[in-house]
């Protein structure tokens, strides 16, 4: 099922007179294509859960509308929308076994939709098979690991054949190893079922690694969406550039004068067609190449070997952070413990952003 968000805004009224209303989501427009795995990405508190709850119907938008395919579902209560939801803490009923948890949604079907006992069991077992927990069905949530609970929660969401599967921070309660495994699992389940899936995360690596489309938001406002690699290569603004990638992009304060961009006092590149103004220059760690004749001079700090590649840690007076990082392969050797190290830039890894609007004005 395709999901369309049209100018969705959510303003929470203040709890007391001292507080002011909170705009959790602001004029959000988005189209989620059928059958895709979409990651909703942004820092904590930016309104991701609120947006997910609006899609599922637990919250209603202050203004704007939600469409499933062509149907306006804005006013529809959650149970009429046919969505499956996996909550951040799974919300498995602790007094029920995995089997009963998965069967629970089917027990709500009434009238024509009512299922026979055999049919219910068949669907429950199917769902359990998809998430590979057939051998855990008699266990209660308290006796399962986080990863197992999460699978049960996904099975419970899948068992009623939802048109859309929504997952709120599905991996945040898992330890690092399990998180890697489980995100592949979510990818596999989504591929096998072909169900339109939206999952919320604040972890950019997670979002980049498994989703077809990532959607970035900041303080309730849509920033950019697209295929992970495209967004990474073409960040629309400084926030997106900073949010994606580990190690993070290096950001310098600079200015444009006479179609040249300066970092500090050094002219580092030509930016044809750009007006004079203050800017931020963003350079991806893999875009900094050690080069004796490069335009950017930094103070050398240390060097770390990362297997095939190595990372140069340096500093620069105009940099926003205390250190800047360059990742490069071993062909670009530098001498041992130099005072300074100079860099040139790799194509498409060098961005210039307007200092005021933070919009990208140049890609080099």
């Amino acid at each position, binding site marked *: 099922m395709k999901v369309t968000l049209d100018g969705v805004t959510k303003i929470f009224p203040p709890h007391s007179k001292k507080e002011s209303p909170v705009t959790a989501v602001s004029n959000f427009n988005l189209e989620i294509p059928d059958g895709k795995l979409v990651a909703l990405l942004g820092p904590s508190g930016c309104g991701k859960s609120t947006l997910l709850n609006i899609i599922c119907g637990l919250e209603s938008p202050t203004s704007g509308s939600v469409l499933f395919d062509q149907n306006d579902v804005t006013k529809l209560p959650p149970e009429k929308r046919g969505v499956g939801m996996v909550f951040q803490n799974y919300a498995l009923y602790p007094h029920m076994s995995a089997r009963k948890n998965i069967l629970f949604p089917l027990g709500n079907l009434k009238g024509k939709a009512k299922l026979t006992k055999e049919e219910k069991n068949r669907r429950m077992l199917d769902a359990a098979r998809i998430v590979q927990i057939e051998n855990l069905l008699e266990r209660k949530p308290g006796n399962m*690991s986080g990863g197992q609970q999460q699978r049960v929660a996904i099975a419970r969401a899948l068992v009623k054949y939802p048109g859309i599967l929504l997952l709120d921070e599905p991996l945040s309660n898992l330890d690092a190893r399990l998180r890697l495994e489980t995100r592949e699992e979510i990818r596999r389940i989504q591929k096998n079922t072909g169900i339109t899936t939206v999952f919320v995360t604040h972890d950019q690596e997670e979002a980049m690694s498994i989703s077809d489309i990532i959607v970035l938001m900041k303080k309730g406002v849509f920033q950019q969406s697209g295929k992970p690699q495209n967004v990474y290569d073409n960040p629309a603004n400084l926030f997106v550039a900073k949010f994606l990638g580990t190690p993070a992009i290096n950001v310098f304060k600079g200015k444009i004068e006479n179609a040249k961009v300066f970092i500090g006092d050094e002219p580092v590149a030509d930016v044809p067609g750009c007006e004079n103004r203050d800017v931020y220059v963003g350079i991806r760690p893999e875009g900094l190449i050690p080069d004796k004749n490069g335009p950017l001079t930094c103070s050398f700090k240390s060097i770390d070997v990362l297997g095939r590649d190595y990372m140069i840690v340096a500093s620069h007076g105009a940099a926003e952070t205390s250190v800047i990082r360059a990742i490069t392969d071993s062909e670009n050797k530098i001498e041992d413990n130099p005072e300074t190290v100079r860099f040139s830039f790799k194509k498409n890894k060098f961005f210039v952003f307007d200092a005021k609007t933070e919009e990208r004005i140049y890609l080099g």
Partner: protein
Amino acid sequence: MKKFGLKAWLYLLPAILFLVVFMVYPLIDVVIYSFEEGFTTTSQTATGVGIGNFSTVLRDPYFIQALKNTFVLVAITVPVSTGLALLISLGLSSIKKLREFFQTVYFLPYVTNTLAVGLVFMMLFNKNESSGSVGMINTFIRFFGGPTIDFINGPYWAKMLVLCLYTVWIVLPFKILILTSALASVKKDYYNAAKVDGTSKFRTFTHITLPMISPMLFYLFITGFIGAFKAYSDAVALFGTKLNEAGMNTIVGYVYDKLYGDSGGYPSYASAAALILFFIILTITVINLIVRNKLTYKGGGGRA
């Protein structure tokens, strides 16, 4: 390690001494008294040792009456008060406005003196035609053309009704307090999950809310049973101290009467009655615990 243990015992000593003097010793004394036959406060000597006290007490019609009253009280007030408290708590947790106000209102009886409440009940249920002070309930009955009923000195069922109402009224606030907090502790996500799955209100209540608060419900049942078996002051507040004559005595009331009442001076009979009560409460509590372990979900959420 050893030194530390000694120190710990030293700290505990005052409490232990206190417990031994005021709890352990009297308890043993009660058991001894109950098996000493023919002992009275005037004679101060026993004629023998045996179970005579128990058989006398068990054949005493006043004891049988007290036993019956206590069981009726327990059987009616425990389920009624717990059920009512649950209904009120559900109501309280579903309203937003004035919730704190109502919580305070429902809690007021808890901090009100039982005797004062008893006086109010007596006034409400009064039927003293000669003095002209007809209570509100009887005025009400009369208004609808019914015959007035003497709830305080009249038929057994009327008196029992008032006693039960009174007891429910007294125990309700505490139960509401416990249950509203139990309801509030059920995580909202469970309800949201149920809502997304289209669960009806009724099924949400029976399949999610009830199991989740069942430990608290059972706690209230167990303490409610124990409390009701030990009832005494409630009956005194309504019917005065001559409970045997009123036919409204309870087991604890009987124990008191055998010690200090008009039929008093028989600590052996009182001790025997007290021991019988102890074993009744023990049995019921053990049954309760067995049922609880079978029925309730024992907490412990997930682990990551």
